[in-house]
């Protein structure tokens, strides 16, 4: 195995990817996703935290108020988010159906200090994005009213929580946690999964298309073939992950410590690529190898996520600058694991490489 041969194979594979324009599809895919991006950002952020939808709107909403007068009406009228219309319940619900109102509240005549609770009925439009926003805003008002009622009934309580005055927030903070705590680790690790699937394709192709024998007839050895392919797949990872980070930066999301993040991703993806290579070397057939790999990888990712200070967690903390130099220790451990796996893969390749050659020759006869 010489370094020259490894580089040769790696270049060949990368050229093959460029020639087949498969990479064009990857780019198309990114563009396609980017087309939805604003939609996706709002959508995914609300999947992550439903309350976030309220942050995207600042208009006044029309609320129909039916039933008895109460402290709630005052709070609603003082709020900048609502315009309150005292109405008859049936008329208000009909207007809600036509969307000239955004919500209808019905309040009973229960006095604030009664023994029983105040039971309010809230009508909103079913399964609608605007109704989601309105519900979140009304929720704020109702929480205020709940505190008012609780204060009236305070003498009936036996214990109070530790008091903390929570200042009003500026908004957008849920977005921050979603982007840094979920989106960034997902995006930068996606290339690792793609590369691992790619190496299965590259290795199985040599076996299934019968091109391995031709390749072995050249001075290229089995080992340099394998490491050349690994190198090609590995080289794609920091490029793709770096492209995501640049795209995020272009969208105004500044990720800190980009270089250490790329190192972590590359080390982690080497492990995934080697697992993929092992599957491919063992099965020499794409369906089986991909199937076993994709099942196995879910288990691996689950276990890794359950460990404290795992590489994905470190990427989150690096991206927001909430970690000291201790992450280098984990990087060293990951790289060590990758090296160990590389040794195993090398051994295994030596074993099956020879056998595979014999078997191919046998099949030829």
């Amino acid at each position, binding site marked *: 195995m010489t370094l020259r041969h490894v580089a040769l194979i790696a270049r060949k594979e990368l050229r093959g990817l460029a020639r*087949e324009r498969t990479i064009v*599809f*990857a780019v198309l*895919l990114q563009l396609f996703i980017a087309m*939805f991006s604003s*939609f996706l950002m709002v959508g995914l952020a609300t999947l*992550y935290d439903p309350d976030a939808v309220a942050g995207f709107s600042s208009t*006044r909403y029309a609320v129909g108020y039916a039933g008895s007068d109460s402290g709630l009406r005052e709070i609603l009228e003082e709020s900048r988010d609502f315009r309150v219309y005292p*109405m008859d319940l*049936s008329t208000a619900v*009909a*207007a*809600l*159906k036509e969307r000239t109102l955004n919500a209808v509240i019905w309040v009973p005549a*229960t006095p604030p200090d009664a*023994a029983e*609770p105040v039971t309010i009925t*809230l*009508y*909103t439009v*079913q*399964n609608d*994005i605007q109704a989601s926003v309105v*519900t979140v805003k009304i*929720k704020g008002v*109702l929480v205020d009213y*709940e505190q008012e009622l*609780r204060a009236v*009934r305070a003498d009936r*309580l*036996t214990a109070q*929580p*530790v008091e*903390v*005055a*929570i*200042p009003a*927030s500026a908004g957008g903070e849920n977005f*921050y946690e979603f982007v*840094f705590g979920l989106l960034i*680790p997902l995006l930068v690790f996606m290339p690792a999964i793609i590369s691992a699937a790619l190496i*299965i*394709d*590259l290795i199985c192709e040599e076996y299934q298309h019968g091109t391995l024998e031709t390749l072995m007839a050249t001075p290229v050895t089995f080992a340099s073939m394998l490491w050349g392919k690994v190198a090609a797949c590995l080289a794609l990872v920091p490029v793709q992950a770096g492209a995501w980070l640049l795209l995020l930066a272009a969208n105004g999301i500044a990720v800190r410590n980009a270089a250490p993040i790329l190192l972590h991703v590359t080390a982690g993806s080497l492990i995934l690529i080697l697992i993929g290579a092992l599957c491919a070397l063992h099965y020499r057939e*794409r369906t*089986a190898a*991909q*199937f076993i790999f994709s099942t*196995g990888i879910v*288990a*691996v990712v689950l276990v890794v996520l*359950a*460990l*404290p*200070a*795992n590489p994905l*967690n470190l990427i989150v*903390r690096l991206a927001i*600058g*909430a970690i000291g130099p201790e992450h280098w220790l984990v990087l060293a451990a990951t790289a060590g694991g990758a090296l160990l796996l590389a040794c195993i893969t090398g051994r295994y390749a030596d074993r099956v490489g020879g056998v595979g050659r014999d078997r191919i020759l046998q099949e030829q006869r």
Partner: protein
Amino acid sequence: MHEAISAVLTISRWELKRSLTTMGRNVLPLAVLLFLLLVLATGFAQQQGVHLQDGMYAMATDSPDLAAVIADDPRFRVTLVEANAMPGGGAFDLAVIGGRIAVAETDRAQAALAAFARDYARYETWVYTRQDDLFAAYPLWIDEIPVKSELDFRATQQGQAVGAVPPRGAPPVPEGTVEVVATPAASLALAADDLRSGLAASAAEDPQVSRYAGVLTADSPDLAFKTPSQLAPPLPFDSIILIFVFIFPLYFTSQFFMMSIMNERVDRKGEVLLTTPARPWQIIAGKALPYLALMLAVSLVLTLANGAPVAIMLPLLPVILFFVAFALFIGMVSRSFKELSFLSIFFSTVATSYLFFPSIFANVHVISLISPLTLIVLQVQGEAVGAMEYLYATALFWLTSAVLVALCTANFTEERLFTSTRLLSTVRAFVGSALSLCRPHLSVFCAAACTIPFVFMAQLMLLVVLFNLPMPLSLVTLLLGAAFVEECAKAVPLYALARKAPGVLTWPRIATLGAAIALGFLAGEKALLFATLAQISESVFGAVLFTSLQALWLPLSLHFVGVLITGAVVRAGGRRALLPGILAASLVHSLYNLGIILGWAA
């Protein structure tokens, strides 16, 4: 007929036996082992918790109680400091000293504050649910009643914001009839102890997990009353859970079929099959049958396991066929495993978006009905789905699947299976071999009609993507996009024929073939539009997409001129001129559509 079916079944048996023996001997033991490992890993992850966001925020506090409460949240690194000693130096995102919070001026600190506020609310619940007088701790209960209101395209068409706020002081007067709404009860129908245990349970569970777990099953009745902090907004995005439950397994199983087709092409292995007396359609049907059965079985099991109505199999069926048809197509056109992987990822993303994005608007807007997933959402909600709605949502899936399978069957030959060329040339060759040189006009007529379901799908995708843009922009981009899609579709049969028989494209032939394509396109458009898309075609968006419906001779000549432009440019400039030709035709097409909409013709 009997013999044909038995041939199909024989091939199915071969396919099953082969996949079972190869998979069985080598893969099954390891797969079982991996499955056990997966169960163990899931258990381990559940027990340990997911440590993705650990240690994101740093907090200092002088209250041991609060430190204990917040330390339960792994996102925080909590430091206990001495009473009233304000820590400085910006080492902390939050400092809670003497009941007051100091927040650092960073985005991270703002996010930390939000996380703290939610933890604090959980802690309050913990204290309050232990009160003897529950209604002193929770004096306010809310009964949430969703009201159904569906918009059609005319609402957005009028250019006004939906749900515009009426002027101050004057309550809105409903235009329609006012139905009497019964006055709600002023008291709770539930016992205090039930409410208390409900509160404790909802505080303990992860709200994000429970909300998605609850999508498939109806709410239990004890959730009818909520405290203000329990109010969760209704979310249209919840239908994504259906994608995960029903669509991803389909995508996964279709991979096996894709590979089975690809494997026949590797090393000319499929030659054996082709030499048998079985006809191509029998081979394809035979090979597809086990996978189709598997997909149906998986869907049925998932449906039953999730307690969803069995009727959702009806809208799932065309989706399953769609996946199988595309798996067949991708398996037949890919040059290599790499290409297969990328093509299938690309296809699944686009198909998933087509299914998912319209269904977001379920119950809101009729556009949602272009996705079969919407029917599933409605059926899970327990609403009846009519035959018209079914046809509307699934027609394109049935038709595209049928056309694709027919195309692949026509090309299931030695020549196509065992040669590999660039993707676009392959597709061109596929269409080419479906065309007959003896009856060129009839075959381009049929081919043009067959592109219609794909054109509609592409255009509806455009509509879904673009109708969220502000009004003039959405119309203009839709106009250009729709014209481009149509011109591409019309260019396909002409170009395929020209490449198949290079001499065929003489100047008079361009005219006659163009006329045949225009006629076929119009006939297909008419037939499908009346069957399915009446709702959209009535709106202004419909006017943009389907202007061709006012008078017959106008759209016919438009389609004719479009093909003529493409054909002429290709004839003059050679095959490299295809794209410029299509662009030129699209431009003319868009101008015409714009003219119709702005009323120039009148």
